[in-house]
């Protein structure tokens, strides 16, 4: 699945060659050869077997494809995989650590923050990015900062509660530690 490094590409007719790109994917150093027009989303889903990241609109309009690149949430459908040389990429498959779900994943289950689940990996990655950014605290701020993730099932109230729970718990832990 994940090919090794190839020799540098020979001169070629427009767009015929695959080119190698190396990045960390869910913590593991990875090199793969891809046609340059492969989006990061298609690379993950079609070339690397990671189908957790979803394709909703393929045009930046729904957030289902949200992944974390160097800790920042972006839409995987609107970036090329070959541009990610040297990057640190995390998808929903890479959030759990040592057999434990990420706190945001736990909260989504606890608060029943999904129905069909199609938007959920994007919502979860987006929430992880949002929490790291540290700008949103109130429910209102969370709603605005999560507005790039559409949920056709309308699970919004529970999504906001789940995210707020993680943010509040983190703040409480910080307070506790300061005591």
């Amino acid at each position, binding site marked *: 699945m994940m090919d090794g490094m190839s020799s540098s590409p020979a001169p070629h007719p*427009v*767009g*015929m060659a695959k*080119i190698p790109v190396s990045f960390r994917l869910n913590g593991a150093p990875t090199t793969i050869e891809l*046609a*340059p*027009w492969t*989006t990061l989303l298609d690379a993950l889903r079609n070339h690397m077997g990671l189908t957790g990241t979803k394709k909703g609109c*393929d*045009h*930046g309009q729904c*957030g289902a494809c*949200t992944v974390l690149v160097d800790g*920042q*949430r*972006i*839409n995987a*459908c*609107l*970036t*090329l995989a*070959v*541009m990610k*040389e040297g990057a640190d990429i995390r998808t929903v498959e890479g959030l759990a650590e040592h057999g434990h779900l990420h706190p945001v994943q736990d909260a989504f289950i606890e608060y029943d923050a999904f129905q069909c689940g199609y938007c959920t990996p994007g919502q979860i990655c*987006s929430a992880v*990015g*949002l929490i790291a*950014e540290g*700008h949103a605290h109130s429910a*209102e*701020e969370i*709603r*605005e*900062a*999560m*507005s*790039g*993730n559409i949920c056709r099932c309308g699970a919004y109230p529970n999504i906001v509660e789940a995210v707020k729970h993680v943010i509040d718990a983190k703040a409480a832990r910080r307070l506790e530690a300061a005591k």
Partner: protein
Amino acid sequence: MNRFDYVRATTVADALRAKASDSRSRFIAGGTNLLDLMKYDVERPTTVVDITHLPLTDIEDGPDGSLRIGALVSNSRLAYDARVQERFPLLSSAILAGASAQLRNAASTGGNLLQRTRCYYFYDTGTPCNKREPGTGCPAIEGVNRIHAILGTSDKCIATHPSDMCVALAALGATVRVEGPSGERSIAFADFHRLPGDTPQVESTLKPDEIIVSVDLPAADYGPHHTYLKLRDRQSYAFALVSVAAALKMDGGTVAEARIALGGVAHKPWRDESAEALLVGRAAGVDAFAAVADHILAPAVGRSENAFKIGLARKAIIRALSQAAAGTPQSQVDKRVQ
């Protein structure tokens, strides 16, 4: 998406060379506009030059409180930069009014300036469009034009420039620094974007062999007297129907200096300096603000579906100037317009 050659540039000179070697090449930064258009075959570059590894990622303090924003600074980093939040809150607010957190993380300063119109016909290669295929006509003029321009249009194109950030940059009097084969030059923000005229396919005064290296902001000192008011179909994650960037210097209840620019109404961010001059020395209040709105909108032309924008813009200008005068900028979280 069509096939293309990919070049990863690491220096500006590299990028310029790669761009020049193929007349159908495009730079890619965040990719959030270029790739969207490539998926619709509206853009079909034969070479894509990746400029994300260029060293244009700094926000630097310049002399006298000015700020130099590298072309590759992301929209979110710019919006949350402490200096921008403190000294240029109007810019921060306009950026946060646009797109989504994910898009702002990817989108670059240079790419935001050069994003293309959201006109439906421009996106649909099955229809004519003077901007996409010069000479084929403009179906929007007699067609679906609810989101289209009311100011500065031509009989060739009535598209709008969709950026929020650029409306604030226009109001703040930014300068765009570009580099080409013959060196560097600076373009005043008002001269950067073009009106459609007879060549709607030419959207800016940046030459095909040039690259944006930075956007420079002169010092600004409007204190709390600013606002970015954006009106749209959804409260979040939607382009402006009409937006207003306003900044005032107040001398008690009198306007000492005014900046006002509109988004969603023209082929470029619409700053009207004659309207700004009208305000100077006048008592802040609805009468003065209505006179300014009427002055700005006097040349406005509505079409079958967008005439409502004239009335909407009038109210938005009055409200935005009222917010700026009162020192109560529009929140980009609580969207109620106070």
